[in-house]
């Protein structure tokens, strides 16, 4: 089966769990076999870990020759993403003005291209994100007509317009994969543009894959999607390589409790700080580490200072790849107090790295884990109690480490990939029967 996949990021150029999940899933699909994958990211850097799949950057695809053919098409697509304009590629300001001085249908849009006729992408989450998403979709349509495949698979909202366009152009069914929804990211204060993109993607898709039942419910209830379209496929974690398994020496004798993730509302960092203060009021020989960056980082530093615990509370900033693993391996307890977490792969990685974990009940991963302490994110007393227990009752930590490793090891990407394949097949079957009837 040939699959065209759209995603916004791919390791090592990642800013969160999305890239990790995409990579894991593609590896799983390769492992299952019988699948050939074309993965499209906005910008390919050339050093991606693309074992067994072909990875393509949207920045490598020329679009100039699409000018004459695509006008009509683009009206539709751009309308869907609320930027109503067909586009005309240009390369320099002079050309732009030359083009601009002629007359065009209302709402015509100009797009800057490179000399090779391609569109530049940053592939990041910068201020031009909406612009990039729109251009990404444009290129996606181009890729869709010049490649052969049976199914289109789009990961998270940035890639939905691309998926929709590719599906529309090629007539192939669309599967969208929901790793997070706007409700998880914003905590109720939703961005209606993003919500609309998400909802259009969900409505256009033949099947929706949710990473947990928690997310599945959000999709059904908040986006009004018929339940039969939505399937839960849990994420998994990559087992560690032998290299990574080697022990890491800790420079200090004190215990380390770690929070790892973006420091944003969604991840509940303030509950971690509060719990840390509670634990520190009772024991001395423990240090708390908040690894990651985000919009609430400064507030958290201030909060820790106010509570007077900065002597035992550390901020590392964003940790990439190896550093993240090293941090996990040095930890005695890993905490994920997320307010809303569609899945949460990092606890699995921590478990594989021999670290007992505490997760919030409001996370998708809580649905599959047995050997993790689960607390409500707002209950900082329960969280503090759990941290204290894991640090002071070695037998509990030992039990969680041993069993947790086995449990996390059993959650394999290969199994997730098999579930995804089932979704593809059921969708294709449905499409065939529909075509037969008409």
């Amino acid at each position, binding site marked *: 089966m040939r699959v065209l996949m759209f995603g916004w990021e791919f390791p090592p150029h990642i800013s969160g769990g999305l890239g990790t999940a995409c990579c894991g899933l593609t590896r799983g699909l390769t492992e299952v076999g019988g699948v050939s994958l074309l993965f499209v990211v906005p910008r390919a850097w050339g050093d991606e870990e693309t074992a067994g799949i072909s990875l393509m950057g949207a920045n490598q695809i020329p679009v100039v020759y699409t000018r004459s053919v695509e006008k009509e098409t683009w009206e539709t697509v751009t309308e869907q993403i609320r930027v109503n304009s067909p586009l005309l590629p240009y390369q320099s300001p002079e050309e732009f003005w030359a083009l601009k001085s002629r007359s065009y249908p209302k709402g015509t849009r100009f797009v800057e291209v490179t000399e090779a006729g391609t569109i530049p992408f940053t592939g990041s989450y910068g201020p031009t994100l909406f612009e990039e998403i729109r251009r990404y979709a444009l290129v996606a349509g181009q890729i869709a007509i010049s490649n052969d495949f049976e199914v289109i698979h789009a990961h998270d909202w940035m890639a939905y317009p691309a998926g929709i366009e590719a599906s529309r152009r090629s007539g192939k069914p669309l599967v969208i994969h929901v790793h997070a929804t706007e409700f998880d990211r914003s905590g109720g204060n939703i961005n209606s543009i993003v919500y609309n993109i998400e909802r259009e993607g969900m409505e256009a898709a033949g099947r929706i894959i949710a990473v947990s039942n928690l997310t599945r419910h959000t999709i059904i209830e908040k986006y009004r999607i018929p339940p039969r379209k939505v399937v839960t496929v849990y994420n998994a974690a990559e087992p560690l390589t032998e290299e990574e398994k080697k022990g890491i020496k800790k420079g200090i004798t004190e215990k380390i409790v770690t929070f790892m993730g973006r420091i944003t509302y969604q991840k509940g960092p303030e509950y971690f700080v509060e719990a840390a203060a509670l634990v520190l009021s009772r024991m001395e020989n423990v240090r708390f580490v908040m690894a990651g960056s985000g919009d609430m980082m400064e507030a958290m530093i201030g909060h820790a200072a106010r509570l007077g615990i900065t002597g035992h509370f550390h901020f590392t900033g964003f940790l990439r790849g190896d550093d993240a693993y090293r941090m996990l391996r040095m930890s005695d307890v890993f905490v994920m107090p997320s307010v809303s977490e569609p899945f949460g792969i990092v606890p699995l990685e921590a478990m594989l790295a021999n670290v007992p974990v505490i997760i919030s009940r409001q996370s998708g991963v809580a649905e599959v884990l047995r050997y993790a302490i*689960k607390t409500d994110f707002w209950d900082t007393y329960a969280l503090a*109690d759990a941290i204290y*227990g894991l640090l002071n009752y070695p*037998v509990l930590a030992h039990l969680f480490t041993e069993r947790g490793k086995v449990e996390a090891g059993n959650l394999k990407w290969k199994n997730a990939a098999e579930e995804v394949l089932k979704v593809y097949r059921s969708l294709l079957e449905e499409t065939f029967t529909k075509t037969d009837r008409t």
Partner: protein
Amino acid sequence: MKSLCLIFRVHQPLPLRKYRFFDIGADHGYYDDYTLENHMKKLAVECYLPATDLLLNQVSRYGGAMKAAIYLSGSTLELFNRYTPGVTARFRELASTGQIEFLGGTWSHSLACLASEQALALQAGNHQAAIRDLTGQTTEVFLNPGLLYSDEIGQMAANLGYKGIITEGARHILGWKSPGFLYCNPLQPRLKVLMRHYKLSEDLECRFSDPHWEGFPLTADKYFGWLLNGGQPAESIHLCLDLETFGHYHPASSGIFRFLDHLLYLINHSGEISLSTPSEILNSLQPVSMINVPNPLSQAGEERDASLWIGNDLQNEALNLLYGIADMVTATQDPRILCDWHQLQDSDHFRFMSENTPAPPLHHRKSPYNSPYEAFLNYMNILNDLTIRVKSHFSGPSPEEIIRNLKNRVNDLEKEIEKSKEEIHRLRKRKKGH
């Protein structure tokens, strides 16, 4: 004539309150008294009062033919005294009829037998004293929580002076043998072993009101037929069930009380089965053989072993810590510390830490915790607080010092009073002068 031995167990664990680590060393109240009081009062109304009434009625109706045995844990007896004295009165009345035998056991339904003979002796002694207080009887037959038993446990019980012990008639121990005979312990042949007929016991305890069960609806006539023509030969049938079966596990609306009433009627009028107490069985029957139980046996789960209480590392750790402080606890002689230590031995605390799915009939007593780990954390926090209390008992000032300090304080206060009196006197004089 076949004899039937009815044994009712009465025990309720003390629910522990949510005890955070901040409370360690600061707050020594461990129990959720509010839940407990409500629970006990509710149970008294729906189960204990009607069930004991039923037994009392049977005794007055059939006189000497009505016999049964009751295990009442010492800690639960205290709860009755505290919250529902009416229930205590009924048990006392039952004992005074002379038709009900009270069984020995542990004071707080504890796992002491898995720790040491010393710990068991302490618990059994307390229980013996509590029952003697209530009934004037000396208990002779021993019953452990979950019917825990092994050759070794039997030996301990024999050393403590018990003549018999009740355990599960598990198939993997009995093999082709029938539970309907008397057996004896291989290490202490004086100790007789009564085997529970688990199928007939669990039919009532677990399945009576289950509409999906093939035996449903169970009538007294049907059940009486099973008693008469059990598959295996038997001299006596031993039924052992929680008294909460009547009215709590199965509500009165299920007809369980009338079932028991009618069953006892059938038994007393049939002339084919007679009721006996465990002691009577020990005295009247000869043991048919020894029964070898090298590993702990219980009524729990499919395995019928002790894994429900000591099956994982958490439980073992908690048990070790609990009994590790035994000597220090007894040395304190502090009644409050001793009481808490005994309460914490309740086997249910350990059951809540089990990762096994609860097996019948214990599923009726659901764990109040979300997971075994929460149960462990809570329990360990409490146990650590108790340990601190025990240790500080020895490191604190000696009684002589305390008395001296208090005397000094009294002297100081008296001086102050004298001063104030003089002051008052002076002021009064001045007033008069004006």
